[in-house]
């Protein structure tokens, strides 16, 4: 209960700042609207207004500041507008019985979620396999690890179209597979790094103890290294699934996709509908939050079952 106050205070500060910024961001739009409907604004010419700072416009036209909070196509929508748009494209559509309409963010979110989960599974498997290979082989450690690091320095936005083109070249239909690959590309790295650290976390004494039992490598892995790596694994998975979601959205952005949250963001940009962009952004953030929270719950349950204090 004591935590609620600071959490609400931070949230309140963010929302307040947001509302405060809306006024200067939207004053030009509000004045343009007013001019078109025949009202008198200072200066009257759109071109002349362009020369002036937003602050000066606000001082000269205080009556129109409020109008900036209810524009149809605002530079920066208010939290309330975003919330309404989000509701209109999710809850309201679901109530109307059309949750999977092409205009519904539930539909687009589902498309994105599918690719994200496939990418997450693929990335996690690759990351864990890579980590095991690195921990058990010095050669792999020295040859694979640098490439893993280099792979993350290449901007994914540059790589995404190539992956899509290449996968259509080898005859893969649709965007599901390439999107999952892009998603896995971002997701495997935190899993790899976390698992390497986790598998290496048992100390020399722990490994020596197993040696005194003449334990086999497989036994040492299953009884010591793997359980010891669990806290590291879950931390990595949480980062990994957020990265997988970003990967999927990036995979939907520059590639002409028409469904998925990334496509909604791009289409919103092309058609000048900022509300759609913001609603899709928030849908993505909420989706990421839900996924990370689910993993967090899974982590707590697993570690508690293992008797470790989480």
């Amino acid at each position, binding site marked *: 209960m004591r935590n609620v106050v600071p959490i609400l205070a931070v949230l309140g500060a963010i929302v307040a700042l947001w509302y405060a910024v809306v006024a200067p961001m939207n004053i030009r739009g509000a004045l343009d609207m007013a001019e078109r409907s025949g009202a008198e604004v200072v200066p009257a010419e759109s071109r002349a207004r362009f020369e002036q700072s937003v602050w000066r416009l606000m001082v000269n036209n205080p009556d129109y500041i409020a109008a900036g909070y209810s524009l149809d196509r605002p530079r920066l929508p208010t939290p309330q507008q975003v919330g309404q748009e989000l509701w209109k494209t999710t809850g309201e559509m679901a109530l109307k019985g059309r949750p999977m309409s092409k205009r519904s963010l539930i539909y687009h979110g589902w498309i994105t979620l599918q690719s994200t989960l496939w990418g997450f599974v693929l990335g996690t498997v690759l990351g864990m396999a890579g980590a095991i290979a690195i921990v058990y082989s010095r050669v792999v450690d020295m040859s694979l690890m640098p490439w893993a690091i280099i792979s993350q320095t290449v901007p994914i936005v540059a790589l995404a179209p190539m992956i899509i083109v290449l996968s259509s070249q080898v005859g893969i239909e649709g965007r599901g597979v390439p999107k999952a690959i892009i998603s896995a590309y971002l997701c495997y790295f935190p899993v790899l790094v976390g698992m390497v650290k986790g598998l290496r976390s048992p*100390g020399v*004494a722990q490994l020596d103890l197993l040696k*005194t*039992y*003449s*334990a086999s490598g497989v036994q040492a892995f299953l*009884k010591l290294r793997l359980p010891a790596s669990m806290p590291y694994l879950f931390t990595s998975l949480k980062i990994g699934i957020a990265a997988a979601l970003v990967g999927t959205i990036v995979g939907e952005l520059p590639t002409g996709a028409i469904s998925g949250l990334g496509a909604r963001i791009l289409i919103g940009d092309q058609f000048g509908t900022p509300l759609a962009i913001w609603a899709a952004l928030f849908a993505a953030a909420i989706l990421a939050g839900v996924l990370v929270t689910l993993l967090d719950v899974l982590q707590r349950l697993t570690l508690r079952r293992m*008797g470790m204090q989480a």
Partner: protein
Amino acid sequence: MQDVAEASVLDQSSTSPVISAQGLDLTFETNDGPVHALSGVDLEIGKGEFVSFIGPSGCGKTTFLRCVAALETPTGGTLTVNGMTPDAARKARAYGYVFQAAGLYPWRTIEKNIALPLEIMGYSKAEQDVRIAQVLELVELSNFGKKYPWQLSGGMQQRASIARALAFDADILLMDEPFGALDEIVRDHLNEQLLELWARTEKTIGFVTHSIPEAVYLSTKIVVMSPRPGRITDIIESPLPKERPLDIRDTPEFLQIAHRVREGLRAGHAYDD
């Protein structure tokens, strides 16, 4: 009385030694040149003896124990454990090893921690349960089997790790500063318990320590070592009786041995400067 004690020691050494080292050398090659961790170590340990290794850091006392456990490979000399090479002895489950840190797995209960070597060695579940109950009773932790390590004090954790080393019936117990991280009161208590346990199980114990009173109180034989190169400077057969209440540490015999250990350590240290 001293004669009687020495006579019994003679009896023990008349049977073939459990651990026997002759001219044992171990040199580590490092970037700063070779480090002589062990040099010309000759030692025989008879069945049922309690042998302490004492000396400053770098004197090779832990290294010697690790050689016996086949965790290090000597570069010269011979070393046998139960008449076998250390490697073969390990495979024959000749010894249990207790490290300075209890090293219990936090994700296993105390019972499951003790079960660890038994699982690896392939004991049946029923056999595991019997043995776990036995060793828990031996270290007086019978009511704590279902607890997790973090629920136990440091001393109890170390007792659990001793139970783990005893679980598979090795007749040698190698202990590397097992009580080094514990406070003196807990340590006294554990020392007393360890002597009882030794008397009941008749194990052969190799015990590395920094503490002179601990070495003298526990041992039938005290091996004093010194560094650079790691070697034995004195071997003291203790004349103290097997029954040792804590206040034996105030008797003249006890103080006399402690004095001799201290002299041995000092002689070794003269090399330093």
